[in-house]
């Protein structure tokens, strides 16, 4: 029974003189990166489902404006129709929760935490206690975000972008504490916790990957997943602090009467806004996007790393262009810091600034194309094994291509004039994050499940999950490009108010129905994850997929100290001998 072996293979914590840890130290307040990784993963999946549900409700209003939501509508409003207030709250929280509570914790907190120490041959992260702290700070941030729904003013309702002056004047409260106990203020407070969690985590990842590498693991022998995670960690480390500063400033504008972002002469609802004025709303946009652009690369890079591992394993040949791939990932990370104002083209930008940011935006498409190309070229001459992880990893490629390509008309200022803040933008970024990153993360779950638990997930359920999802997800997001071309703005409660919106309304029905099918498609996945732990097909060896990276040297699941015998690295990942024999990194050739 894998459950028994799980217990027996647990090493002793030396600092406790050889005694087994109590349950709450082993599984709740654990410093073991594997337990923490799983904690991140389970919490993140919960938040992903929550954020998804918010959108499923909004999708009813979008498809059938002003009609009561069936069965559960009356839980939200008296007549069952989603109100504009709730629509805006759900919209803002959908974005926030998916990005900061869902995808990043899953991609970085779960996959990064679990795999990076294993893939470099380490016994744990460099700072295990800090690791534990970063999870619990994330957890508190998540609770604060959820509690924001219960304030008198409801949750934040100014988009995940929280642009002032709207985010400062929206849902105000009386005095300091009254101002603090509003959804919009709690959003800012929650962000401070989440940012702190990310900062702590990224220090850990970088130090672990660099310092705790085993003998023989030079940088150019790192698996692509490690390169992706380390680059991501640098992005989080350096890009998040300006948003933390900006968040504090916006909080002060809300509860302290300051005017960092509030210009003079504001008249809100007929009354002069009582503050000193002299502030600049555009300052917030600069500080926000300085983080939020690198943030989107934080969303995609771990996915790129996971897809790389899975493609290597299931093509049974070396990854094409490893060096090019690594340099592209690093260049992408660097460039991500100097494109941010392409989100701000419509703020009254002149020619010089807009030309600079257009140029950097065009340049950043180059490493993205190179990464996609190296994966595509890996398929040439391969022997492709269509496991469920490989299905998702393969689908990632064209989906990421659509997402990336649709960034081009947005990155060029002149075409952005028409497409800015329309559904085209929503389609663009969702393609990258949903059938892009989320598919890659799902692939990762199927792929590493046997390592984490010692059992496989069901193949049949996996295939059903895949085919239903890939069809439904395109049904949700492809129509958005057409809707954007037609000029339909984002964040509209009811686009049929406009003639051009009314004409495009049939697309909404297609998108909503697809979204509900997509939701149903996740049920086999959730069931599969929950039940395969106990009843899945056992993995007969430590390396059932025939992979080459170090995590497959450990037993499944790995013991507390990961490796009971010393590991050493003898070659680069993804290599084979001349007689086509798989050569894992940790096996000395005979």
């Amino acid at each position: 029974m894998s459950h028994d072996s799980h217990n027996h293979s647990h090493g002793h914590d030396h600092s406790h003189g050889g005694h087994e840890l109590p349950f709450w130290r082993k599984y709740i307040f654990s410093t073991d990166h594997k337990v923490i990784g799983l904690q991140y993963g389970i919490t993140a999946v919960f938040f992903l489902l929550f954020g998804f549900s918010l959108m499923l409700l909004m999708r009813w209003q979008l498809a059938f404006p002003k009609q009561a939501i069936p069965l559960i509508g009356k839980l939200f409003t008296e007549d069952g129709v989603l109100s504009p207030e709730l629509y805006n709250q759900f919209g803002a929280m959908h974005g926030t929760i998916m990005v900061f509570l869902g995808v990043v914790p899953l991609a970085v907190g779960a996959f990064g935490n679990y795999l990076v120490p294993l893939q470099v041959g380490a016994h744990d992260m460099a700072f295990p206690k800090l690791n534990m702290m970063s999870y619990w700070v994330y957890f508190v941030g998540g609770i604060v975000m959820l509690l924001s729904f219960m304030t008198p003013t409801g949750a934040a309702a100014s988009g995940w972008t929280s642009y002032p002056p709207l985010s400062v004047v929206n849902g105000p409260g009386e005095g300091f504490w009254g101002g603090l106990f509003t959804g919009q203020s709690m959003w800012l407070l929650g962000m401070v916790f989440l940012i702190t969690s990310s900062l702590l985590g990224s220090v850990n990842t970088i130090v672990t990957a660099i310092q705790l590498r085993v003998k023989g693991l030079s940088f150019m022998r790192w698996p692509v997943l490690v390169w992706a995670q380390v680059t991501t960690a640098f992005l989080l480390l350096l890009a998040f602090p300006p948003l933390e500063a900006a968040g504090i400033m916006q909080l002060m504008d809300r509860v302290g009467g300051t005017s960092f972002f509030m210009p003079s002469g504001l008249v809100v609802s007929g009354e002069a806004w009582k503050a000193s004025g002299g502030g600049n709303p555009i300052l917030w946009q600069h500080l926000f996007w300085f983080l939020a652009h690198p943030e989107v690369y934080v969303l995609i890079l771990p996915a790129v790393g996971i897809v790389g591992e899975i493609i290597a394993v299931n093509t049974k040949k070396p990854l094409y262009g490893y060096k090019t791939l690594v340099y592209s990932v690093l260049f992408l990370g660097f460039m991500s810091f100097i494109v941010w104002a392409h989100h701000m083209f419509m703020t009254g930008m002149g020619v010089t600034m807009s030309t600079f940011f257009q140029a950097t935006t065009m340049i950043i498409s180059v490493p993205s194309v190179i990464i996609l190309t190296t994966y595509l070229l890996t398929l040439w001459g391969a022997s492709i094994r269509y496991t469920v992880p490989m299905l998702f990893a393969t689908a990632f490629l064209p989906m990421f291509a659509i997402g990336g390509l649709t960034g081009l008309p947005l990155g060029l200022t002149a075409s952005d004039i028409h497409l800015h803040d329309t559904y085209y933008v929503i389609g663009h970024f969702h393609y990258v994050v949903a059938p892009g990153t989320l598919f890659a993360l799902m692939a990762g779950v199927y792929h590493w499940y046997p390592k984490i638990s010692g059992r496989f997930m069901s193949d049949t359920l996996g295939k059903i999950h895949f085919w239903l999802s890939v069809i439904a997800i395109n049904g949700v997001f492809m129509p958005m490009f057409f809707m954007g071309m037609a000029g339909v703005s984002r964040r509209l409660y009811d686009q049929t108010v406009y003639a051009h919106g009314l004409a495009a309304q049939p697309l909404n029905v297609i998108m909503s129905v697809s979204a509900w099918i997509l939701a149903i498609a996740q049920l086999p996945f959730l069931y599969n994850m929950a039940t395969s732990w106990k009843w899945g097909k056992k993995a007969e060896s430590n390396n059932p997929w025939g992979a080459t990276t170090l995590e497959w040297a450990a037993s499944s699941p790995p013991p507390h100290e990961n490796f009971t015998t010393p590991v050493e690295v003898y070659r680069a990942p993804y290599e084979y001998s001349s007689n086509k024999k798989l050569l894992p990194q940790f096996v000395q050739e005979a």
Partner: protein
Amino acid sequence: MSALIPYIDEPHPVTGVTNAKLGMWLFLASEVMLFGALFSTLIIMRTSATDWPAHGSDVLNVPLATLNTVFLITSSVTIVLSWAALKMKDLKKFKFNMGLTILLSFGFLVIKYIEYTSKFHHGHFPSTSTFYAVYFTLTGLHGLHVIGGIITNLYLIGPGSKMWEKEPERFTGRIECAGLYWHFVDLVWIFLFPALYLL
């Protein structure tokens, strides 16, 4: 478990630093970005303001702030001396110099308290103008970092110093990291002082 994590006491052969030292440098890099955002805010607020004080000295107490600068710079010296004392295996001298560091830091906070209360007494709050908003936020965040440093140093001079008996190298490494952090806090002040008070 900690016995299984290498490079806690001795530096890594390639990077030349311990894990904690690398971690501290990375953390300080993020702190540079944090204060950088606030300094950028200062510049942007100032260039677009209509009622900014012509000189910081018009509204802020330069002599007091100069004294604070002396306190911080001196405390940076004393914290290095405390680390050097450990390198020379002199725990008493370490405690003496770390004690001086903490004392000087408290001095800094006292002066900050005097400054702030004087401002409040005259009806100047962050909400008064963008100048005061930036002033209070920049110095306030810096002050919070000073407090963080004081708490850490109090721990290291007190209960934390027990580590010297069993793991002297590791403890010395901790003091070195604390010193790095403290120098950073000092450095921020060295930018802050001219930016707000003198210019």
